[in-house]
């Protein structure tokens, strides 16, 4: 059972991304109106806009939160070829009374020569680190060595993907058995560009990221990509938003069988492929335990996918963008109960470009 709540966002143009913070009580939206808005959830469950400011000189494509261990920190990336890191300043008591908070820019990352299409913070066990990807096909990884000084970021790695990149995802697994890993998706439409998903893995010996795998079967433009949280599995699960929803498992092949020192080889299997959206799928997002995947598409619907105890994936819920129920969704009985409140566990965003609809 789902409850839909509409929020009048007041952005003056298309909203491209929505991101919840770690605890699900704060939300950031970004738009082609070049601004970012931060929303806070009150005790009664209402969302209030507590900050709204111009962040870039072009459309802002994505916005993302850092782990709260680093404080209240946001990163945004834009068509204006930059990515920026923002920190919330504890305001004057006047501001607090009015329910407003103040965000300051800590740094601007200007290395890209083209539109920066995605920015994501690395898992917290790697320190304060983020990755950006650009239309020029380069993934850049930055680190802030002093977490108390957010103005100092250094470019640690530049990974060339040879294809225009559209999205990235860090593998959240903190297991010592897994090296840091990042998946990159491409929406490159040139005829030479075939396989659109690449996986890069950090090598302790060379201290560099090297390509570990390419998903050869994904040949259509990829709009979003997301590693699932790891419940102690030895293998990884990756969801891809392309012309349909696809879920892959990547099982590391035992190291002794591969040449030592090289990147891990993976057995790749596709465990699910759903074209129910019947149109381009723009976003995929996992819940906390990596057991439910949410996808959104050009059909204006959000679909939820879940595996049963036999590891068969099925659709367990359909939500219309305007909050109305979809007929024939008898699977609603199986979906995660909301107990009357919004489930902040599910993070997803509607594609801003579909019907130019303001996020409601």
């Amino acid at each position, binding site marked *: *059972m789902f409850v839909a709540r509409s929020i009048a966002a007041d952005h003056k143009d298309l909203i491209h991304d929505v991101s919840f913070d*770690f*605890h*699900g*009580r704060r939300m950031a939206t970004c738009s082609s109106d070049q601004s970012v808005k931060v929303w806070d959830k009150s*005790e009664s469950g209402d969302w209030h806009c507590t900050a709204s400011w111009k962040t870039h000189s072009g459309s802002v494509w994505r916005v993302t939160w850092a782990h*709260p*261990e*680093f*404080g*209240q920190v946001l990163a945004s990336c834009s068509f204006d070829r930059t990515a920026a890191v923002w920190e*919330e300043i*504890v305001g004057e008591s006047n501001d607090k009374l009015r329910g407003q908070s103040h965000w300051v820019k800590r740094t601007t990352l200007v290395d890209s020569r083209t539109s920066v299409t995605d920015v994501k913070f690395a898992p*917290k066990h790697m320190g304060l680190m983020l990755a950006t990807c650009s239309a020029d096909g380069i993934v850049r990884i930055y680190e802030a060595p002093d977490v*108390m000084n957010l103005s100092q970021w250094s470019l640690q790695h530049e990974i060339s993907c040879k294809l225009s990149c559209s999205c990235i995802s860090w593998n959240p697994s903190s297991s010592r058995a897994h090296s840091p890993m990042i998946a990159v998706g491409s929406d490159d439409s040139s005829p030479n560009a075939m396989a659109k998903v690449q996986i890069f893995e950090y090598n302790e010996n060379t201290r560099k990221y090297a390509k570990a795998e390419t998903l050869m079967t994904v040949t259509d433009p990829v709009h979003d990509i997301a590693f699932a*949280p790891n*419940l*102690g599995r030895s293998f990884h699960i990756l969801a891809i938003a392309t012309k349909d929803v696809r879920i892959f498992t990547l099982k590391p092949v035992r190291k002794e069988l591969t040449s030592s020192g090289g990147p891990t080889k993976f057995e790749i299997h596709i465990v699910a492929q759903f074209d129910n959206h019947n149109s381009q799928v723009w976003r995929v997002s996992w819940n*906390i*335990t990596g*057991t439910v995947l949410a996808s959104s598409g050009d059909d204006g619907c959000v679909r939820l996918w879940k595996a*049963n*105890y*036999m590891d068969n994936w099925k659709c367990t819920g359909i939500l219309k963008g305007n909050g109305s129920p979809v007929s024939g969704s*008898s699977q*609603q*009985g*199986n979906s*995660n*109960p*909301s*107990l009357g*409140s919004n*489930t*902040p*566990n599910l993070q997803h965003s509607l594609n801003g470009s579909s019907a130019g609809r303001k996020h409601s």
Partner: protein
Amino acid sequence: MEEMHQAAIAAKDASSSRQLSSQVSILSAMELIWNLCEILFIEVAPAGPLLLHLLDWVRLHICEVDSLLADVLGSENPSKHESFWKLVTILVLQGRLDEARQMLSKEADANPTSAGMCRILGDLMRTMPVLSPGNTQTLTELELKWQHWHEECERHLQDSTFASSPHLESLCKIMLGDEAALLEQKEHLNNWYHFLVTRLLYSHPTVKPTDLHFYAQSSLDLFLGGESSPEPLDNILMAAFEFDIHQVIKECSIALSNWWFVAHLTDLLDHCKLLQSHNLYFGSNMREFLLLEYASGLFAHHSLWQLGVDYFDYCPELGRVSLELHIERIPLSTEWKALKVLRICEQRQMTEQVRSVCKILAMKAVRNNRLGSALSWSIRAKDAAFATLVSDRFLRDYCEHGCFSDLDLIDNLGPAMMLSDRLTFLGKYREFHRLYGEKRFVDASFLLLSLMTSQIAPRSFWMTLLTDALPLLEQKQVIFSAEQTYELMRCLEDLTSGRPLCGEPDTQQLQDDDIEATKVEMLRLALARNLARAIIKEGSLEGS
């Protein structure tokens, strides 16, 4: 459930009344299903006792007869009560023949003409063979006796014994298990499973569990009579009568809107080792799967998440890691909530989660300039690096404002002081101030010196420490010994010689340098004077 029922009746407006009523009916349905599962799967009642259990089941879930019974008995003339025959019929349908007989005797008393018939029917009721618990007769014996009794009832019917009373005649037909007669009582039976049980009571009392589903299916069909189709509840009960546990769980999952019922039922069945024996090789996987689903759902609630913790504890495979992932996400809106989360994590040795939660809170405190809070969270997280950072802030604050905030905390650090060097220094430095305040100058001086010589004082702080030494140097009595004074002088020289000169000093820096230079001068003077006095004191004989 009783309360909800009362609330539903007392509800002020129609919609809340409807909602409460629907909740009541859902709970009743769950109870119904649960009890049936207990009888069929857990008790595993064999033929004979099976029927008795089913009778109890029916009687338990249809309670209106008791109030009606009280009503009728309490009236002036029970047998003239408008609901008298309704009551008797219901009693017979439920197999409560003793009470039915009592009712008939009241009728016999009130109405002499029918007394004879009442007596006969009453005798039939009394003599119906039932399997009573503890009875040693075998099933075959029971069947035989029952057959005889059945034939006797049949004879009475053929002889038109009850012809003059349609009520009594219909009762007799019911007791013969006549389907048509039973179906006439649809209104009193209310549902097909009551019909099933009554039918079994009066036609196949020794029904075997394996045959149950035949009768169940035909009862359902007869009762619905093609007018309506089975509801989800009917499907669930039917699956139970077919002993298809998996189907029961599946149907319940579909029909109910949350996992509570299914999770608990599956858990119970798993504990009774029933899931394996029913060929569900993934049985305990399914139990854990459902429990995880239910617990995850609880975590979405602002206070029920605490129950979810216990459920995760009982999931051997994925419970711990699921709990780790969920508990990190609980919003730490109040200190109380944070402490609860920490206690839960500490009890389960989830050290990483403890560290993370404390770090989040410490960071929040630092940003809000609540240094004491930040320090206590860092200590709890055993985060030496952050403790150092916060201690530095404290010291910086002291330099700027000349006093400490959060004295209580620093005074009572205890062994936690050892977490980081900077923290130890902070604690000891505060102790120095305390000693000075208590005028225990000698102790204070020893402490001050040890702080400087033991290297735990950060270099940036040495000037402040030396400046703190000034009042001690200027006291009337000599506090620092010659030896100690030499140490202090050495530290001062160390400090002044070690300071690098940076590029082009601007006016502010020049001013600062001026102040620094003056301080150094004062210190040198004070140290020299103290040295002189100390040498004299130490060189003199006592008392002179």
